[in-house]
């Protein structure tokens, strides 16, 4: 029985959902135009991931195999709606910026993937740790991508100008193509680091 520490860190490094497993790219590419958007999306996804892992894992002996996917989807969709409503109520500005992408967490294959591949076969505590680790890994990746794109694309970091007025914004970086460019370069860097 391997330690929980390993279960936790694998999501951040060895099996990072974005850089190693290349999961959940739809929200990743869409919302990471600023660092704060990246973090908010990451945290919202982490919350859903941890909650759905917990529930799926605790129901794993009750849910028959044939209806497991619909059951997982219902569980995930419920938590996403909870996040959606809560953000609308208590983080209204952020909710406006992230808009459509909050409900779209439902179809983030990272979350369904962890329910199916991990939580439905492992005890509760282990699934929670897995969810937290994967969530943090996902959040870090979104934050990193958001930071790079915000600095290059608008010369700011968390909304504060850091590159001075002389800096000419590379506009494409905050547009959708910029997400692919930044993502591709970062994947390459991670792969080469991994090999060496």
């Amino acid at each position, binding site marked *: 029985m391997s330690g929980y520490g390993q279960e936790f860190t694998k999501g951040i490094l060895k099996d990072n959902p974005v850089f190693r497993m290349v999961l959940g790219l739809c929200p990743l590419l869409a919302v990471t*135009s600023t660092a704060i958007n990246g973090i908010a999306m990451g945290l919202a996804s982490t919350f859903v991931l941890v909650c759905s892992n917990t529930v799926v894992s605790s*129901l794993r002996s*009750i*849910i*028959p195999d*044939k*209806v497991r996917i*619909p*059951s997982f989807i*219902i*569980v995930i*969709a*419920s938590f996403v*709606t*909870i996040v959606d*409503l*809560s953000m*609308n*109520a*208590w983080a*209204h500005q952020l909710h*406006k910026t992230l808009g459509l992408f909050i409900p779209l967490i439902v179809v983030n294959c990272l979350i369904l993937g962890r329910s199916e591949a991990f939580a439905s076969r492992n005890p509760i505590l282990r699934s929670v740790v897995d969810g937290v680790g994967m969530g943090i890994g996902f959040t870090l990746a979104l934050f990193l991508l958001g930071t790079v794109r915000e600095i290059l*694309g*608008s010369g700011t970091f968390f909304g504060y100008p850091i590159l001075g007025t002389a800096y000419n*914004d590379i*506009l494409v970086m*905050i*547009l959708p193509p910029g997400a692919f460019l930044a993502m591709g370069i970062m994947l390459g860097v991670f792969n080469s680091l991994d090999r060496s």
Partner: protein
Amino acid sequence: MTSTWRLITVLSGICAVAGFALAGVYEVTKEPIAYQKKLEVIRSLEAVLPGLKTDPDSFFLDMKREDESQVRVFRAPTQNGDAVAGAAFEVVAPDGYSGNIYIMMGVFPDGKLGGIEILSHAETPGLGSLIVNESWKGLFRGRSLEDTNFKVKKDGGDIDQLTGATISPRAVSGAVEKGLIWFRDNREAVLDAAAGGEKPVNTSGETS
């Protein structure tokens, strides 16, 4: 219990629990969400009718635009409450770069703009989205149909376009002009203090 029945019970059970949980969350968040929405309206009214106190819940008028669509005209009373000091209403620019742009605009009785506020838009980030900047929205303050040609400079008008983005400013400017024309044509009705809504409660001078 046959296996089919088991599938049905489990799935129904999960759905029922999820349904009840969501109903609970909805009840809890209903109030704060409504409050945030109202706060948003209040903030935009303050921005487009600077210096006036506009209560979104009283003294408004429900009117029709030229295309017969409904529009709610929020109105700010004068100090003694017997006249209208400013009116604010929503206009829609359907010709933005991507999707409709919703704009709140405030007009004073003399036909001068108090300001505009972009309520929602989906323009390109970093280009068209610059229409939300104070420096651009501020261009409209104090302008009226008489002294301004509401076209972007590229089209021979008075409104600055933005670098790399002409379509969004053109759309907003056009919508604002239409709004001003609508106001001019319906001025009598909008400024009729006796009409519509409830009577204004405490106006600015007495309470704050």
